């Protein structure tokens, strides 16, 4: 009996200890600053030396592992990899394209196990500072040439996004352009007798009504990827900004009169506009069930007159629907509102070189090739209308797509740079790590309006504004940041927010 008990105890002990023995990958619960500093200060000289040592043998077979989520330029990337491997027979590119969620799920495990890819992007929600402190990236300054840095648009470099001090960590994928303009199908509009491109809420509503009536259950006014809450969020923010409201860019935070600006008059106007489209039956009924790429396809098939998305649609349409007769227009504004804005695209960090990469030099060479004219990746992306390159010379030479040019023109004319708390206060990095997401979010509320699950959107907006204000105050307090840093009293929405404006607030 005693032996049995002992045996049972031993087994229980083994079962308890075995799982715990694997807990080395668990997070530390020590002091945030010290932990971060430790991670950030990990000496990489050994890695560099090792890498340099390896360079001595130029014929060494090397596999570069690259992971990202750039599906908008997948074809161009594939061609680039083929060419790169042809030119570098000793290098094999192992490229994995994931969705953003898949990437978030896997990257932490890869890094924790010391097996991160050589090149990978920063997942949304994480700032460069946090990523560097976590030991994810290493500076690329010493691996790239001065010429390489010199060819970039100076606006594509930003402290806290691509650089920390003098250290260059990430390269941004493209020049920031607004993600929300309205595409229209010229043939659908013509068949419905819509001759003028709508500019105001009432004109847009009228055009959608005509298209829907003429469509007889097959064609609707507006379609969008309503299953993707982030797309709905962009739509709401852009409409509210175009109505004259002070609204932060997507995933960002700022306050107006000390509150989260989710229940402002302009936001209510924007939501009211979307609800009126729903009430008219002008929204494609599948909108709630489909993702943005599915909406893009259905728009191209002529199932709707309008679609609210970004420049990334142009390239796939050129490939899959070369006969699609379409145009692009600005975000509609409330009747009588003029001289307004939408949030300008924000520079976001993209890919960098893994701190523990065994081949940082080759990884940096890959990056140089990716952004060079010679390998054709940038030029094909620009020529196909995928995006505006961060290399101005390439844009000048290859931007030939008329719709892309029109998109860029409207984007430049209508968008304004909005203030960000990261540019104002370094503690904002900690704020974004600390702050909790409030649900139902703005995007979810739009989804609720589209699915007719919400009738009282005013109440939902007020709850969101109240809860967000409370949470932002808590997060500010937790990281020792002044809550008033979220407020930009000198922000004039009719003008770009400049460095001088930030200076004024100091």
């Amino acid at each position, binding site marked *: 009996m005693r032996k049995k008990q002992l045996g049972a105890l031993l087994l229980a002990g083994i*079962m308890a200890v*075995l*799982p*715990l023995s*694997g*807990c080395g990958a*668990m*997070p*530390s*619960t*020590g002091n*945030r600053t010290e*932990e*971060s500093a430790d*991670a950030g200060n990990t000496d990489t000289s050994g890695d560099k030396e090792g890498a340099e040592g390896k360079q001595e043998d130029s014929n060494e077979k090397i596999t570069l592992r690259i992971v990202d989520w750039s599906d908008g330029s997948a074809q161009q990337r594939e061609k680039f990899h083929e060419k790169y491997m042809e030119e570098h027979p000793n290098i094999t590119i192992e490229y994995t394209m994931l969705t*953003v*969620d898949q990437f*978030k*799920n896997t990257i*932490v495990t890869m890094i924790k196990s010391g097996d991160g890819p050589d090149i990978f992007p920063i997942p949304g*929600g*994480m700032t460069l500072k*946090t990523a560097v402190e*976590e030991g994810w990236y290493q500076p690329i300054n010493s691996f790239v040439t001065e010429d390489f840095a010199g060819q970039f648009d100076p606006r594509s470099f930003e402290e806290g996004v691509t650089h920390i001090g003098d250290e260059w960590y990430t390269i941004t994928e493209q020049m920031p352009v607004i993600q929300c303009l309205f595409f229209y199908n010229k043939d659908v509009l013509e068949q419905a007798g819509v001759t003028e491109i709508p500019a105001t809420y009432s004109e847009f509503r009228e055009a959608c009504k005509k298209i829907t009536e003429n469509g007889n*259950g*097959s064609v609707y006014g507006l379609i969008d990827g*309503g*299953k993707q*809450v*982030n797309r709905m969020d962009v739509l709401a923010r852009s409409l509210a900004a175009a109505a004259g409201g002070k609204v932060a860019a*997507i*995933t*960002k*935070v700022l306050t107006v009169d000390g509150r989260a600006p989710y229940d402002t008059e302009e936001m209510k106007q924007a939501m009211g506009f979307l609800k009126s489209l729903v009430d008219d039956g002008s929204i*494609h*009924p*599948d*909108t*709630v*069930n*489909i993702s943005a790429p599915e909406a893009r396809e259905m728009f191209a098939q002529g*199932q709707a007159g309008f679609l609210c998305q970004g420049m990334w649609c142009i390239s796939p349409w050129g490939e899959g629907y070369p006969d699609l007769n379409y145009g692009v227009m600005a975000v509609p504004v409330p009747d009588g509102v003029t001289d307004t804005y939408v949030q300008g695209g924000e520079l976001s960090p993209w890919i960098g070189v893994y701190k523990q990469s065994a081949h940082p030099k080759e990884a940096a060479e890959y990056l140089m090739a990716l952004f060079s004219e010679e390998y054709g990746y940038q030029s094909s992306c620009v020529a196909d209308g995928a995006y505006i390159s961060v290399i101005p010379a390439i844009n000048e030479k290859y931007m030939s797509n008329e719709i892309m040019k029109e998109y860029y023109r409207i984007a430049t004319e209508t968008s304004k740079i909005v203030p960000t708390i990261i540019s104002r206060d370094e503690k904002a990095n900690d704020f*974004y790590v*600390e*702050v*909790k*997401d409030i*649900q*139902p*979010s*703005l*995007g*979810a509320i739009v*989804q*609720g309006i589209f*699915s*007719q*699950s*919400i009738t009282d959107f005013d109440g939902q907006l007020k709850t969101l504004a109240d809860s967000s204000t409370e949470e932002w105050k808590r*997060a500010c307090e937790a990281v020792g940041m002044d809550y008033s840093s979220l407020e930009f009293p000198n922000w004039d929405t009719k003008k770009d927010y400049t460095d001088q404006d930030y200076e004024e607030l100091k």
Partner: protein
Amino acid sequence: MQKLQIASGKGTASEKRRRKDKMVMNVWCWLFMALAVGFYILFQGYPIICSIQYSLLNWSGMTGYAEYVGLANYRELLHDELFWNAFFNSFKYTALIVPLELAVSLFLAYMLNNEKLKGSSVYRTMYFVPVVTTTSVVGIIMIFILGVQGPVNHLLTSLHISGQPVNFLGNAKYALPTLVVISLWKDCGTYMIYWLAGLQSVSKDVYEAATVDGANRRQTFFHIVLPLITPVGGIIAILCAINSLKVFDIVKTMTEGGPFYATDVIATYVYRSAFSSEIGMPRLGYASAAALFFGGAVIIIGLVLNGIKGRLSKNI
């Protein structure tokens, strides 16, 4: 006295041998189970223990730093309306699908268990095909089939069953029942196989005796076969309930928990909390607390129901 001692001595020797045999048997048993136990520890035990630790942390899952917050995540859950919405949706989904799944799969199994049925193996394969089809593929195809301009709505409007196309997945009223129907179609092949195994364990003599006694097919089923296979049914019900409570893939593929959380179940809630966020970082710690809370709640509900069942059977 001498005899007794000898007897006792013999008894000790046989006792020792019995113990030894038992021990050897135990060692063999553990040896055979070792692989399964090892896998259990690695892929179930370890993640569960990690989850318990994570649930006590304020941790995004993306940084190396985490703050110990005790039971704060659990306290927050109690006031989280969306968590409770997902919690009840999981049970609603289970309550809808389990009886349907059991009934439909049993019906199919009983039909296919008929020896006189020609080509029964073809039918079995046919009903089993959806089971081996990837859920994401099923999801994508079903979104098209059930779409406003899809074939189902085309049929409904052509036959004047519905004047307007039905928004099966975009309308909060219909979205969850639609998911139930699709899951039913996809999974009933599995349960049909279980039922078939149960039905085939019923002796042919029983059927023959029933026929001799003049029972028709319906009477044979309800009064003879069903009582005999009820224990198998209990196990199938438990398996079905467990699978339904942790439903994820079909919901994720088809509705992402929408429209406006109408089909949000615990698994999608946990996934969303753990891996995505619109502002700031995701919350792996909070998501772990939600998963454990739900798991604990299911165990408690199971124990209470078991207790009630025990009392009822005693009273009967």
